[in-house]
């Protein structure tokens, strides 16, 4: 615990810098999460498990000599495939059945738990570690960031920009946005809902996988349940930014990450996630549409795929 005199510049700026570094994967994951929920209507609590499963597969490739870029590709692909399959095999069936919102939550929670246990069965319960070549330390605006962190930030920014281009300038992106805002109208206007939803699961799955690989490298040691802690933070950022609003999620993720690092200056480091929980509880109790969202009836339509 760091009480007493804290030299502002020497402690705060690195904390902010570290916050920005962690915001790389938190933000990426949050953007993927908010799009997934906004478009498909499913609040996916297996996202953390899918995220970490990508890390596991990346680890396997890393063990046989895969470098950073290879494992990123593999991780993204894993995220896409697992997300797509989990939706096709599990989620979609329940959406079609018309299960209640709470029921859907139980479904996604169990899907995540089952996935975690499959990972446990395959890889064992030990903490794993992805080895990456030692990089350099760069001085950036008063703080030090290493190669890995800068790579992570770059990848996150590139992905988010790529997503923005997809959403704004392509037909698929337009259809995705239509589904997120008004599913009934979208369906009636001839949008091929099933196809768009499939693409959504694949694309947000890639993002989930990438975030998982970046996260597991940044955090060093991980195992099956490591995805859960980071899921809550991503979920909170998604809600804060307004479900279905990628820019809101990105900003919220950045703010949350920095806040989580700044708060370690006064409370024990392993308690810092509490910032996310407090924010989550407050926003759901007081303003479920999010800080940037439009105050609608806070209803996310569950799209029938």
């Amino acid at each position, binding site marked *: 615990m760091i009480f007493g005199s804290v030299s502002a510049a020497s402690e705060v700026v690195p904390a902010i810098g570290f916050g920005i570094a962690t915001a790389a994967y938190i933000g990426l994951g949050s953007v993927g999460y908010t799009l997934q929920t906004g478009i498909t209507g499913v609040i996916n609590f297996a996202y953390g498990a899918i995220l970490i499963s990508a890390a596991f597969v990346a680890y396997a490739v890393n063990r046989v000599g895969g470098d950073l870029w290879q494992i990123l590709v593999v991780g993204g692909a894993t995220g896409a495939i697992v997300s797509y399959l989990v939706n096709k095999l599990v989620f979609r069936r329940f959406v079609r059945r018309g299960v209640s919102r709470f029921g859907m939550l139980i479904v996604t929670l169990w899907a995540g738990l*089952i996935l975690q246990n499959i990972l446990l069965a395959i890889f064992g319960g030990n903490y794993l570690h992805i080895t990456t070549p030692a990089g350099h330390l760069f001085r950036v605006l008063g703080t030090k960031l290493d190669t890995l962190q800068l790579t992570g930030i770059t990848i996150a920014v590139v992905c988010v920009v790529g997503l923005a281009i997809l959403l704004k300038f392509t037909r698929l992106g337009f259809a995705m946005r239509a589904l997120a805002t008004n599913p009934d109208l979208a369906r009636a206007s001839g949008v091929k809902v099933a196809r768009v939803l499939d693409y959504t699961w694949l694309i947000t799955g890639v993002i989930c996988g990438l975030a998982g690989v970046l996260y597991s490298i940044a955090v060093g040691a991980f195992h099956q349940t490591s995805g859960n802690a980071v899921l809550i933070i991503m979920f909170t950022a998604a809600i804060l930014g307004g479900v279905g609003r990628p820019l809101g999620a990105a900003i919220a993720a950045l703010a949350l990450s920095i806040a989580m690092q700044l708060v370690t200056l006064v409370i024990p480091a392993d308690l810092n*996630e509490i910032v996310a929980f407090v924010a989550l509880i407050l926003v759901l109790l007081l303003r479920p549409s999010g800080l940037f969202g439009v105050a609608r009836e806070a209803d996310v339509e569950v799209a029938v795929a």
Partner: protein
Amino acid sequence: MSGANLYATTLLVYFFIDVLAAWGLNLQYGLFGMYNFAFILFQSIGAYTAAVLTLGPPKHVFGTQDYFFGAQLPFPLPIVIAGGVAGVLGLIVALLLSRNLRSDYEAIVTFGLSIMALLIVTAVVPLFNGASGLAQVPEPLQGTLGLGAGAYSWVFVGFSGLICLASYGVLRRVQGSPFGRALRAVRESRDGAAALGVNATWCRIVVSVFGAVLAGVSGALLVEFITAWSPAAWTYVESLTIFSAIIVGGVGNDIGVLLGVFATEIVFAEGSTFLPTSLPPNLVGSLPWILIGIVTLAFLWARPQGIVPERRDCVRISKRRAAAVTWDVPTHGDFADLRDIVDGGVASGRG
């Protein structure tokens, strides 16, 4: 004490304790429609309370367990107080959830609460000894009864069973009464019930406190039996498992919930014995969870009301008392005698 004895008593005590907790959640979720993923906190605080009230004051010496308060109270005070403390927490949760939240948002808020509590207790060691948790909790009446380990365990089984039985009696009274009917009405339609004069806030408080007390007592019994309690015992997975037992067993039906808990226990206790020993231990550890998960999903898809569903028309009236009715019973074409008034007559409608 023989191995079989140990196995049987452990299984039975766990069964009674889990059933008690599950009935508490069934009251909140099955009957009233409260989506409380922080439920496990009630059991947890019951366990911690009972533990610190049996361990005695903390020594604050390096190498001993660190907790914020302790006493050495005689049986059954720690268990009773544990129930009370859990009840207070139940009241707090009820007041927190007074806003009309969407079902899944309510679950997520409470989910967040439970993980936050886990975080705090793990990180703030002086509270309840952090991740290591509390251990060496003296068993109640250990010396005074002068029984051998085997006999003692069976007494514990009997004691837990009695508490279960008593709780069942109280729950049955509540659920089979017009008050229970009001609870279910709020579950079905908050607005509809309010328009008919039902005070949903009061109902929520009652259900939350009652269910919390049951869970708190269950936690106290558990810690007195296994003499240890740590954060690993109350993760979100525990809450999820109780929900599963209710969903599979029977939502809103205590006998059904009993069945659901029993089935879950069997999977964990017996599951590994049916598997070939050549399987890697990780697979063995994960299979029960995968099985329970798949079964839960199957029930949610095919039969969400569970194996033994809620009774139709839960209010129980004794036929004998109905037969003693002295006032004039109205007769109409569609129904003709007192039987109709007692149990609504033969079901002639759909449903």
